[in-house]
């Protein structure tokens, strides 16, 4: 039988030939739009310099029983594109880890530098930062969820616009570019009005939905910077959740580099 191409087949072929560059075009449009949104969100948050916050971390297991941790965080804005921010986290409770402190010098793509201070021994230990996807102090937050979300850490693609809690949002997919991430991808909802993150879905390495993080109670600090009152992380795979409740936020503080050194970590309290 002679192989013939029907007009329909021709049409299909023609569409395929025409659409693949079109699709590529659409894809790169989606990428640049996604990147623009992330850049705009970052640009609107530039200049906060130093911040201090006090928060409660409520860990809830699948049976609903809760344990609470209290901590304080200081952060220093670093504007160098290759480097991330510096942060110092000090635990106030549970009481047996009171005074334990974690210093992080984050990088965008390179591994972060991290030191842990153990107050009982007065010992500062440089620790491995390869455990980005591991749980932060037994919570449903991974280390990577709590680090500064620099634009360069991800590849972006705009997906659609959608309402979340009555707010118009951009929905953007982002794929981690840094090593040791526990995620195949994340879907982020930024509100169109102020470019604040309203929700993030985290997909594990097998691309199944792992966790959903929702932000609540945004307030403006230092006349410009939006910070949430709460961040609630729900793990869909193990039924646990962790709620971060911020009790205090201070922004625009004049903190210096010298407050974020391993030598100062020894004196943290």
């Amino acid at each position: 039988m002679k192989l013939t191409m029907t007009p329909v087949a021709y049409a299909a072929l023609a569409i395929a030939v025409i659409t693949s560059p079109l699709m590529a075009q659409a894809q790169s449009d989606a990428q640049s739009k996604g990147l623009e949104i992330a850049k705009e969100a970052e640009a609107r948050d530039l200049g906060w310099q130093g911040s201090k916050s006090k928060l409660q971390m409520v860990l809830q297991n699948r049976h609903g029983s809760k344990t609470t941790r209290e901590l304080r965080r200081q952060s220093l804005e670093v504007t160098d594109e290759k480097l991330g921010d510096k942060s110092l986290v000090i635990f106030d409770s549970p009481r047996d880890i009171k005074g334990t402190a974690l210093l992080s010098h984050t990088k965008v793509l390179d591994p972060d530098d991290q030191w842990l201070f153990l107050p009982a021994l007065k010992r500062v230990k440089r620790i491995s930062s390869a455990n980005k996807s591991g749980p932060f102090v037994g919570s449903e937050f991974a280390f990577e969820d709590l680090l500064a979300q620099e634009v360069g850490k991800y590849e972006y693609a705009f997906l659609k616009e959608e309402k979340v809690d009555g707010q118009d949002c951009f929905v953007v997919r982002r794929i981690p570019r840094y090593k040791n991430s526990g995620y195949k991808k994340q879907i982020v909802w930024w509100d169109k009005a102020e470019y604040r993150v309203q929700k993030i879905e985290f997909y594990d390495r097998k691309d199944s939905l792992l966790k959903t993080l929702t932000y609540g109670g945004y307030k403006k600090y230092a006349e410009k910077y939006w910070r949430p009152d709460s961040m609630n992380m729900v793990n869909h795979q193990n039924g646990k959740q962790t709620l971060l409740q911020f009790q205090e936020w201070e922004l625009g503080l004049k903190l210096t580099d010298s407050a974020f050194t391993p030598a100062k970590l020894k004196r943290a309290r």
Partner: protein
Amino acid sequence: MRALLATALLVMVGCQAPQGGVFDFSGVVTGELRAFPANPRFADQDDDPLSVSVAVEPEIVYEWQDGLQRVVATPFVRVDSNDDDRTHADLRELHWLYLGDSFTLLAGVGKVFWGVTESRHLVDVINQTDGVEDIDEEAKLGQPMVNLTLEGEWGALDLFYLPYFRERTFNEERLRGPFPISSNPTYESSADEGHQDWAVRWAHSLGDFDVGLSHFSGTSREPTLVPEVRASGTVLRPHYALMDQTGVDVQWTRDAWLCKLEAISRDDDQRRFFAAVAGFEYTFFQFIDGYGNLGILSELLVDDRSRRSPRTAFDHDVFVGARWSLEDAQDTAILAGAVVDLQSPETLVSIEAERRVGDSWFVELTARLFLNTDSDSVARALSEDDFISLAVSYHF
């Protein structure tokens, strides 16, 4: 001397501390039960297989000028049912601290840790070991000091003036040498415990490397135990020599690897010697079903000190260990390790398991075993002192 220093400090603070500061009071009470399954090795040792003790360690902090200045007081008391020498009190900390931008000044009684390795702390020589607390040499007595820390792009430089010496504490019953330890030590320095010591340390973090270089000059915290025959029987009398010790500690951190080195060169009243600990720690993160971290540790220990220097069990040994942390809300963790002598079968085994209960309680189970000790080994005297301890702490 100590009382004098403390008084001077309190007066100084009393004059300076303005209103409007912040008080913080916290602490821990620990009940500990130790079980010794074997009969003691020496006839004069208490043969009670169980010993109970209670320790209290409150911490009082007063901060002012937005945390720029603070006073810290951390007294410590332990009462032991069986060992009179383990019943003891100490001032772990009592100092004033000024936290400047490029310098920090501390005056009073303080605690300092230097080093990176896990099995032995060679470069860490500022504080005296509180030997009755545990045999791991990690509990320290408060050290009177003036410590100035200077910081810059080049790292941190610590300068120490140490005006007073603290004697090491020793158990009277279990976990001691073959004879009771005399509470009347001798010193190489004619000033006895009043010898003025000094130390300096430079530390810096350079990319993947954390480096420390230190020097200490003064009375060694490690005594030689000299047998002395008395009418009442033989005792071991501690002798504290003067020493000059230069130390280096380096850690290289990359991915899940930590590579560590501590090395010292010490000149004591015998001769100059070298000692080192080098090893690694590798962590398998989220190794079971995504939960828990397993760290594998190994360190090589060498020490070529004179036989007349303070004796050490770590002259040519290898340490292997594993740390399993569940990364759960209760911070459950287990650490097991063994130090094996490379020239004899002597092995020291240690297993520690810990977990938080509720918000304020913490439970630690520890076992320490002294295996295959032979007549020449330092741990020979401890051969019957294997023990298990259960410590329950309440933190407030």
